[in-house]
């Protein structure tokens, strides 16, 4: 048996409805700001019959419409339509719902227009239509709505969960100016937050750390994780690395830690799939590397949608593709090693083609060349490019890509084929 509570006016409020539902059942669904459905199965001996419970509710919260039915959607429809207390007997759902207007169903505008053009006005008329025709015309959504109109739509409730906040905030008695005692405090709170996350079967992928500094300033930092975690040790290590790399400007007088709760990642790995680094361990390793090479110099390369030569960006990925690629191994291709930044060069041009190049480390006669290949783009931006590229073989030194920048009238060595 399911019960639906529907508030007709501004009172009772959504919080009052939820508080009432929590008193009577651990499983209830909040379908809107003014409607709550409860699973009342097995509560009759403890709470009383539906008539007794419904009377108690309507007396306690005037302006409440209550309906009891064997299916949650029938209870909702009855509570929305009928005033006071309604008890729909099992097996008589279709008769009770029959006179309701079809507009009460959550139909799309297109479906509503079609039904009106057919002369369908009530639940009974909609329920009498052939199911195959409804499926052909409106798809599975139409079939589901027709079953609601017939009172034949048993479904499990989507249990309501309170909005959980995983936060600790505290003012310190004495300012902390050393990393170790600060981490000691943070560790204790992180343990508590992670325990709370695990108890709620949640994890976090974003950790907000706010430090109140001496003098009134605040130091706010956000640690984003590529995969949700609920273990305190790697989170503490990540905070440690961050504080070590970017220490606060003054002693700390207050700390606030907040973890953004998310659903934990669940992966079904295959027995024969290649191994991959453990996400938490990889995140720590990359943070450790970023500490000495710089945050922007470690990650996974991505090629943006542009023709700009050498364009790329580094990102921290949330996962890798461990499925083998289709097709065989590609043939070996000629690699280009890029000089960052490109080397400014002196180039001797003879009969329209470069004949000698000179730059620190590369100096010699050009024995073979291929080009020029003109590329230009982004002319509307300040960093536009416009150049002529040549592939040249410098005697005894290798194969290089050089280019003539047409805007600055200068030659550069872009890289070496290797």
């Amino acid at each position: 048996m399911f019960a639906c509570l529907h508030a007709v006016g501004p009172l009772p409020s959504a919080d009052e409805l939820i508080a009432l539902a929590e008193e009577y059942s651990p499983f209830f669904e909040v379908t809107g700001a003014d409607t709550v459905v409860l699973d009342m199965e097995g509560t009759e001996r403890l709470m009383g019959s539906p008539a007794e419970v419904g009377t108690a509710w309507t007396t306690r919260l005037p302006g409440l419409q209550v309906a009891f039915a064997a299916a949650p959607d029938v209870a909702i429809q009855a509570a929305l339509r009928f005033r006071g207390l309604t008890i729909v007997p099992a097996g008589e759902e279709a008769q009770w719902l029959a006179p309701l207007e079809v507009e009460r169903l959550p139909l799309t505008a297109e479906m509503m227009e079609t039904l009106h053009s057919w002369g369908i006005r009530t639940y009974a008329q909609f329920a009498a239509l052939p199911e195959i025709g409804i499926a052909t015309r409106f798809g599975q959504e139409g079939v589901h709505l027709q079953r609601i109109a017939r009172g034949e739509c048993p479904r499990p409730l989507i249990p309501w969960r309170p909005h959980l906040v995983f936060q600790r905030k505290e003012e310190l008695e004495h300012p902390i100016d050393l990393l170790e005692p600060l981490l000691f405090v943070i560790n204790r709170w992180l343990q508590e937050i992670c325990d709370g996350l695990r108890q709620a079967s949640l994890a976090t992928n974003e950790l907000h750390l706010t430090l109140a500094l001496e003098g009134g300033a605040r130091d706010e930092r956000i640690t984003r994780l590529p995969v949700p975690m609920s273990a305190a040790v790697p989170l503490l290590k990540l905070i440690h690395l961050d504080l070590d790399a970017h220490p606060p400007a003054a002693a700390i007088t207050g700390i606030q830690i907040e973890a953004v709760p998310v659903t934990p990642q669940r992966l079904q790995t295959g027995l024969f799939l290649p191994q991959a680094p453990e996400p938490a361990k990889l995140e720590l390793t990359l943070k450790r590397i970023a500490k000495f090479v710089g945050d922007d110099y470690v990650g996974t390369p991505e090629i943006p949608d542009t023709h700009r030569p050498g364009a790329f960006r580094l990102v921290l990925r949330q996962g890798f593709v461990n499925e083998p690629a289709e097709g065989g191994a590609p043939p070996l291709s000629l690699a280009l090693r890029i000089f960052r930044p490109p080397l400014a060069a002196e180039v001797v041009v003879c009969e329209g083609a470069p004949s000698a190049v000179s730059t620190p480390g590369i100096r010699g006669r050009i024995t073979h060349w291929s080009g020029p290949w003109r590329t230009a783009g982004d002319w509307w931006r300040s960093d536009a490019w416009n150049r002529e590229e040549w592939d040249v073989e410098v005697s005894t030194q290798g194969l290089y890509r050089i280019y003539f920048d047409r805007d600055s009238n200068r030659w550069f060595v872009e890289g070496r084929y290797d």
Partner: protein
Amino acid sequence: MAASPQLSALLHFQQRPKTTVSTGIGPFDAIAGGLPCGAITEIYGAASSGRTSLMLGLLAASSRRGEVCALVDASDSLDPSCSAAAGVRLENLVWVRCRGDAGHAFKAADLLLHGGGFGLVVLDLCDVPRRILQKVPLSYWYRFRRAVEDTPTSLVVVSTEPQSKSCATLLLEARNRRVDLAGAPGFHLLRGVDLEFASKKPVNQRTANLRAESTSARTA
């Protein structure tokens, strides 16, 4: 005379067959039997000898098997577009750009190897000056060898001269045989480069002839 237990253990370690994995690069697999897992492979050669082309070929093979790869780029010289054209699955690649600091490169490689889980870790030392590499103690290479042994990870070192000495299980020397520039006089097109890789360890006089095709859109 019977060898001491320590010497026997060392000989057993040296003679222990390494697991190899096929790279799909036929001539390479023919001379090396595939890429050794849990061991150090070193590819060395002069500029434009094809070291980087083979490195990208190995990264492409590993990443396309679904493995996660790491490239420690001491001189920050990887071209992601070129790598993608070579077949490397960029989404399976972790790239560490060390901007010419060899010390950072060794430290990053050490962290990645000890982190574990990678199919292939490449340490690219091609443009690091010789005077800096000569200062790298041999103990680094022993440490790397210890880190990868008994794991499915392959460590590939790419450089101008051999670096890892006795720690490498496979040592290949790269040579550029011919640059293929085709076309009529006055207009040439870079088609590719013919390369040769000679096995220096194990010393078996085997060579692999490979061709690195130019993937530039100009030759399409």
